[in-house]
């Protein structure tokens, strides 16, 4: 069982992943320290979601190593991976709530299934977590399909923090939300993660959201990290890739997969 030393909560070392001839992750390396919030930004198709799926074990990289709390996960047995994932929470882009279960069971799912908690106790905690994200106990018995996308995201956030995880992943947390609801979600993410002291990895296109929730921001381009630095330095970092991305300019070193007019 391979482990690594060092203080990084999550560590990716030279991770590569291809689909056919298309290389999506190209020797990508990234470290996230304990209690640190890192936001990964980048254009569509640059490998952000693939990176997250590789960390979560949903995709297997062809090369490289991924460590969670020093535990190597690439090629690890399913039981090792499941044990590592018990320390994590995840908010999906469209919440990915189980529509066959009521809201409270969605939130309590990890407590019941992964931690073996009794259903009554898990329901009690689920209602507490729903309150943390601003949802009342009356929501507990509703079906996810009855909720707005903003409410679904909040339930997804409650599910992500239900087990008090040490690591939380956020996949495009503000996508599809109006600016006010996006701000609500950003504040909830910041408050919840500070409250838990968790390390977080967020994928986002939204620069405003990224600056609000990040300690560090990393820019991915063509499957590699081309810049990483403190969130407050992003506006004057001098990196041409970052500057183009922040400005939203079509001209610059970032090549787009579109035909120029």
């Amino acid at each position: 069982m391979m482990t690594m030393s060092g203080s990084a909560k999550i560590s990716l070392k030279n991770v590569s992943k291809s689909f056919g001839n298309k290389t999506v992750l190209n020797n990508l390396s990234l470290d996230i320290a304990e209690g640190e919030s890192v936001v990964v930004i980048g254009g569509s198709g640059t490998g952000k979601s693939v990176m997250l799926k590789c960390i979560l074990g949903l995709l297997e990289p062809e090369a490289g190593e991924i460590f969670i709390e020093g535990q190597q996960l690439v090629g690890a047995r399913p039981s090792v991976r499941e044990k590592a994932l018990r320390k994590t929470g995840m908010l999906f882009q469209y919440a990915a709530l189980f529509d066959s279960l009521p809201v409270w069971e969605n939130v309590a799912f990890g407590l019941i299934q992964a931690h073996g908690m009794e259903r009554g106790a898990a329901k009690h905690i689920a209602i507490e977590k729903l309150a943390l994200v601003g949802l009342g106990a009356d929501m507990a018995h509703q079906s996810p399909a009855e909720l707005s996308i903003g409410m679904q995201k909040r339930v997804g956030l409650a599910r992500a923090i239900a087990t008090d995880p040490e690591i939380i992943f956020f996949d495009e947390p503000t996508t599809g939300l109006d600016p006010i609801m996006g701000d609500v979600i950003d504040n909830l993410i910041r408050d919840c993660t500070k409250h838990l002291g968790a390390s977080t990895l967020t994928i986002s296109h939204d620069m405003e959201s990224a600056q609000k929730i990040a300690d560090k921001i990393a820019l991915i381009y063509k499957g590699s990290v081309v810049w990483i630095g403190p969130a407050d330095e992003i506006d004057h970092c001098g990196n041409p890739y970052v500057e183009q991305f922040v400005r939203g300019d079509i001209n610059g070193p970032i090549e787009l997969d579109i035909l120029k007019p």
Partner: protein
Amino acid sequence: MEWNFLAAIGRVALQFMRSVGHLSLFTVQSFKHIVLPPFYLRLFLKQLMFIGYYSLPVVGMTALFTGMVLALQIYVGSSRFNAESAVATIVVIGLTRELAPVLSGLMVAGRVGAAIAAEIGTMRVTEQIDALVTLSTNPYKYLVAPRILAGMITLPMLVLVGDIIGVSGGYLVATESLGFNASGYIKNTFDYLEARDVISGLIKASVFGGLITLMGCYHGFNSSGGAQGVGRATTNAVVSSFILILISDYFLTVLLLK
């Protein structure tokens, strides 16, 4: 031109082999999680209700009218050589050995196989299966194993009920419209019926139940491409279940006749 033709055949053959390999691995994983703990009893009971109890009306109707029409048709044929007394025996053997398991299998494939593929397919394209993984829950164990086990257990039960209803349908037609004596018909039904007639039908039903739920889970699990992908998975689940039921029926019959 000739080269392109060979390349096309090669591509199809490779694709077929890839699919067979993929399905084999899926089947091994699924059955591994049926026998290894933890077991999700609540989900298993839910599937027993969905696959078994809620399929009773459709299986019952199918069996009833199959038994009725079988009695009529066999009467027409057997009366041509004065063998009307064989109607009860042929109805019960035809139903228990062949028609009840196959027709129940086809009806359940249409109802349950499609529903499983649509539900799991939607879970796949909306990232709910990924969410299961992130919540340290094995999707084979949580989604696939309870459905396959429930399918293998409930379909024989449905077929047993179908046998009884089908024979009753034949009895009704024979006594009410073909003029058979009630006690004579019942005597002929049971005199020549052997336990292995019923048991072979139940064995077939269990295999069909496993195939239907396996196909539903497999196609749902591997669906992609949004609503269109889920629709394709549903169609593939039903069509492949139908074909596998009919093919395996022949081989099971050969095997069980030995």
